[in-house]
C-alpha cells in the first residue's frame, strides 16, 4: 500500500496519539491536530488524502471546519468522529460533503474499512 496521508483531528491528545500510532503501525502516514486552526494550518502545509475529524473540537464548530476543508480542496475525504451519535450533526456533515462517520469508541477495523473506501473514492474521482 502506498503511503496514504491521514490527518486526525481531535482535542483529546491521548486518544489521537494512540489512534495515530495504531494507524502508523498499519503503514498509514498520520499527522494529528488538536484544534480546527491547527488542522487548517497542516492542511495548507500538505494536503492529506483523508481527514478523520471530531465534530466537537474546541474553537471552531466541526461542521464549519468541514466546510472550510472542502473549500480548500473538495477532493479531500472527511470521516467524521462523533462521541454521542449526534444524528443532526452527522446528517449536516454528510450534506456538507463528509464521506462517512464513525462513533467513539472507535473500532479500528471499521475505521480502516472506511478510510480505504474514502481513498478508493478519492482515487476514482481523480
Amino acid at each position, binding site marked *: 500500500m502506498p503511503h496514504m496521508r491521514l490527518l486526525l483531528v481531535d482535542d*483529546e491528545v*491521548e486518544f489521537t496519539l494512540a489512534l495515530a500510532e495504531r494507524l502508523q503501525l498499519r503503514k498509514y502516514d498520520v499527522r494529528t491536530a488538536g484544534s480546527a486552526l491547527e488542522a487548517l494550518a497542516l492542511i495548507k502545509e500538505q494536503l492529506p488524502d483523508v481527514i478523520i475529524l471530531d465534530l466537537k473540537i474546541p474553537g471552531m464548530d466541526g461542521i464549519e471546519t468541514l466546510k472550510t476543508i472542502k473549500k480548500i480542496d473538495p477532493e479531500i475525504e472527511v470521516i467524521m468522529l462523533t*462521541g454521542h451519535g449526534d444524528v443532526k450533526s452527522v446528517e449536516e456533515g454528510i450534506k456538507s460533503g463528509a464521506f462517512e462517520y464513525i462513533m*467513539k*469508541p*472507535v473500532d479500528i477495523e471499521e475505521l480502516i474499512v472506511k478510510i480505504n473506501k474514502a481513498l478508493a473514492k478519492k482515487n476514482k474521482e481523480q
Partner: protein
Amino acid sequence: MEHKFEEGLRLLQLHFIGKILAGFTHEIKNYLAIIKESAGLMEDLIKLGKASESDSGQNLEIIHSIEEQIEKANTLFRYLNRFAHRMDIQFATFNVNESLEELAALVTRFANQKKISIEKDFHEAIPPVYSNPSLLQFVVYSALEEKIRNLDKNSKIAIQTGVDENSVRIRIVPEGNFVQGEGDTTSISYKILEKIVMQLGGNILQESGRETLIMLPLTNS
C-alpha cells in the same frame, strides 16, 4: 400563577438535567475511547512483537494512560452520583464549594467547546448553608449557561465564593468579549432565577459587566 411558575420550573429543571447528562455521557465516551485505543495499541504492539522488555517504558506509559482515564471517569461518576442524590432532599445543610465543584466539573465540557475556561476561586473556610442544593445548582448553571452563550471564544468565567457576616456569596464573573449569543429558547430569564433565590431566602443581582452575584443566608442567621 404560582402553579404555572412551578410547572415552568420543572420543565427547565428537566432541561438542566438533560444537559448535565449529555455532557456527562460525552465525557465518559471520550474516556472510554482513550482506554480502547490505548488497550488496542498495546494489543497491536504485542501482536507485532514490539512490546518487548526494551519497550517497557512505552508500555508503562500506555498502562498509566489507561489508569488515568479510569480515574477521571471514576471522579466524574462520583460527581454525577452526588449531583443526582442532591435531589433526594429538598433542603439540607451543605457546603456550597462542594456543590459548585461538582457543577463546574459537569459543565466544563460545554464551556470548552467555545474555548471558554471555567476557573474556581473558592473561599476555603466557607461555612455551611441550609438551603436547597439542587435549586442552587440550577440557578448557578443557568447563570453560567447564559454567560457561555454570550461570551466570545477564548474567554474565561470565574466562579468565586466568599462569606460576610450574614451570607455566603457566589459570584459568576465573565471575562472576555460579549457577542450576540445564538437564540436559545430554553435560556432562563433573570426574573425566574430571582424568584427561586428569593424562595431560598437569598438574593441575586446582575451586576455591571454582566456579573451575577448570588447571596444565601448563613445557617445560623
